[in-house]
């Protein structure tokens, strides 16, 4: 008579807090999650296939559209992978390298700001959203001043950079950096010690370091579990070896630690930016392009190159047949896609309210998950 069975709820793809078109098929008992199954593919655009049909430089704008809130790092990963298969990594002028680092650290801050904004609003704190967007807007203005675009930057080229820093741009970044630490303090004053915030995040979605490594989790979720792994240190690229920065790690691997990690990372990125400004001022203006062939036809072979994107390890695997100007095969290893795999494990046994916190803490961008 009383047929007890769990309720099935479709969480998304149209839902305010799935950060896009993620669909999670939930089996819930009351509010407790028995099973959470992410269903993806609603934003699939065949980016990898497209890469096979266009010349390497033409691919760069398409990389923008994967993680569309962190396009500079997407560009960086791709151009570095192509440079690696061309064997011209060492030829990139120093000014271009520093400029790339500046752009990707600005991008890291803006991506983390967007993460914090949405994560906080998912957990119900409304105000940090607007504070984060206030600072993010300034970063987007800086991007606009550099390349004219605010989101899909298309700001890097194989073999160097397309533009030099515009007049006064570096001073604007310096001014931004000077104020940014205080802004992070402001966000933290609203959340870090807030009792409700802690109750919503401490002990939620605990990810052990072993699990994290086995699932291939990278980026802040991995570091939140206490594993000191940052590709900027582990496999240094560009001018990162010269820069001083710490890798913030957590202890318990819960949502709160991942939050703390990302907050500390924003401060560290700011620290990197502050170091970059004097470095770039020492270099010759206009020295941005390596002397490489205009026609990019890499030798036969394959290469995998990965960088530390804001969300984790962003890798490009390129196979070249040595005959054409486009890749024979290009595979992208997007951090969000891999990190999202942990969601069913993390969500199991938690409440529906925690699911939104977990989706937030993994920090996914569906453009990158589905590609």
């Amino acid at each position, binding site marked *: 008579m009383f047929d007890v069975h769990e*309720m099935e*709820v479709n969480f998304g793809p149209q839902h305010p807090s799935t950060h896009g078109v993620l669909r999670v098929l939930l089996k819930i008992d009351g509010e407790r999650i028995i099973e959470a199954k992410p269903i993806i593919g609603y934003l699939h655009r065949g980016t990898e296939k497209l890469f096979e049909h266009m010349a390497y430089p033409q691919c760069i704008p398409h990389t923008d559209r994967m993680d569309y809130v962190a396009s500079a790092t997407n560009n960086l990963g791709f151009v570095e992978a192509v440079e690696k298969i061309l064997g011209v990594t060492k030829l990139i002028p120093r000014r271009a390298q520093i400029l790339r680092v500046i752009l990707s650290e600005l991008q890291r801050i803006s991506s983390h700001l967007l993460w914090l904004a949405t994560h906080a609003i998912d957990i119900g*704190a409304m105000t940090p*959203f607007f504070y984060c967007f206030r600072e993010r807007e300034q970063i987007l203005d800086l991007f606009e001043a550099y390349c004219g675009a605010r989101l899909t930057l298309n700001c890097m080229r194989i073999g160097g950079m397309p533009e030099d820093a515009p007049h006064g741009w570096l001073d604007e970044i310096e001014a931004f950096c000077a104020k940014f630490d205080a802004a992070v303090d402001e966000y*933290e004053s609203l959340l870090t010690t807030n009792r*409700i915030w802690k109750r919503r995040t401490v002990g939620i979605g605990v990810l052990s370091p072993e699990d994290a490594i086995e699932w291939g989790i990278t980026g802040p979720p991995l570091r939140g579990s206490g594993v000191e792994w940052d590709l900027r240190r582990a496999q240094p690229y560009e001018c990162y070896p010269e820069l001083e920065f710490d890798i*913030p790690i957590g202890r318990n691997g819960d949502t709160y630690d991942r939050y703390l990690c990302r907050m500390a990372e924003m401060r560290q990125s700011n620290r990197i930016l502050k170091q970059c400004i004097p470095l770039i001022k020492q270099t010759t203006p206009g020295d941005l392009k390596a002397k490489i062939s205009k026609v990019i036809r890499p030798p036969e072979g394959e290469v995998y190159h990965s960088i530390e994107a804001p969300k984790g390890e962003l890798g490009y695997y390129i196979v070249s047949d040595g005959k054409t100007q486009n890749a024979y095969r290009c595979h992208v290893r997007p951090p969000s896609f891999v990190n999202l795999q942990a969601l069913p494990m993390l969500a199991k046994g938690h*409440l529906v309210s*925690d*699911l939104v916190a977990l989706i937030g803490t993994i920090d996914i961008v569906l453009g990158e998950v589905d590609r």
Partner: protein
Amino acid sequence: MNTPLMHYLVWPLVKFLIAFIIVQVLVAAMNWIERRLLGLFQARLGPNRVGYKGLLQIIADPVKFLLKEDIVPASAEKVAYFLGPILPLIPAFIVFCLIPFGPPPTFTVTRVNVGLLLILALTSTGVYGIILGGWASNNKYSLMGGLRSAAQMVSYEVPFGLSIVGVLMICGSLDLVTIVRYQETNAWNFLPQIVACFIFLVAMNAENNRTPFDLPEAESELVAGYHTEYSAMKFAFFMLAEFSMMIVNSCLMVTLFFGGWTLGMFGIGLTTDVLRHMGMFGGILGTLIFVTKVMLFMLIYVWFRATFPRFRFDQLMDLGWKWMIPLALGNIFVTAIFILAGQERLMYWIGIVSIGLAAMYLFKPKPKRAAAPGKVAHAS
């Protein structure tokens, strides 16, 4: 002129209508104030396009709701679906008959000697509409919102009611007018009943499903909770009921703990007698004082909304049953001891000391965070 008909029916009706209109204007104004104030909190402007500083938004919003298409889901349980938004509205309006806005008899619609009980009884029926609406929408999110709301409102009804008991014990009456009159000759009740006042503040936020207790309509979890499937005027009815209940609870807060329409303690200041000496003007002044106090508490709602994240459902229940109810019972116990000893006035010191401690905590200089934190993100 002063026939029983006039006395018991016509005048109360006229006064109720006036109070009703004033409250509805307040509700509409509150909508604008809330959005404007949230804007200020959140480093943005808020509505500022329609009319001077966006003031015409007050009119524009209802007009928009009236003109919008009223969508009824095909699979909805029609009767219950229609009843859903109306049920919470009725008690929210009736309650205004019982609230003393100014010095009686002119500025109080009706004076009932069990006024407080009647208000509690009426306000607690509001939850039916929400459950019914959530269930009738035939939507899983709405259902969960309705269920959450039911559990929450029933749970917080208990500390809500218990926190009032201390006031009743001190004042010895359920009549709101008597409670206010007691407060002007003694201290306002928030001093001896600071714990109850705090519980009441928390419970009234929970009762109204406001942040940090806005789980029933938690946007990020349940889309919009029980009113997900409601549109146009039906949705507006839900909002109207919610804002009206917010005003009712603020009115109760002011009446029970903050001296109602008076602006004086220990018989000094603008007490009822002083106001009565001023005639009609005094009455209006008293009402203005009352409304100002109510609006201050409405601002606290907004302030909370701008500050706090949202509780989780089990934590909310935890807070209600494990903290609020024992605290309220303890408060009753302590109050009873003081009353038995005949030393009610000693309780003022509880309030003064608590406020002092809170102020000390608030104005304590905060340790400055290091500019570049170490390797481990953990502070401790």
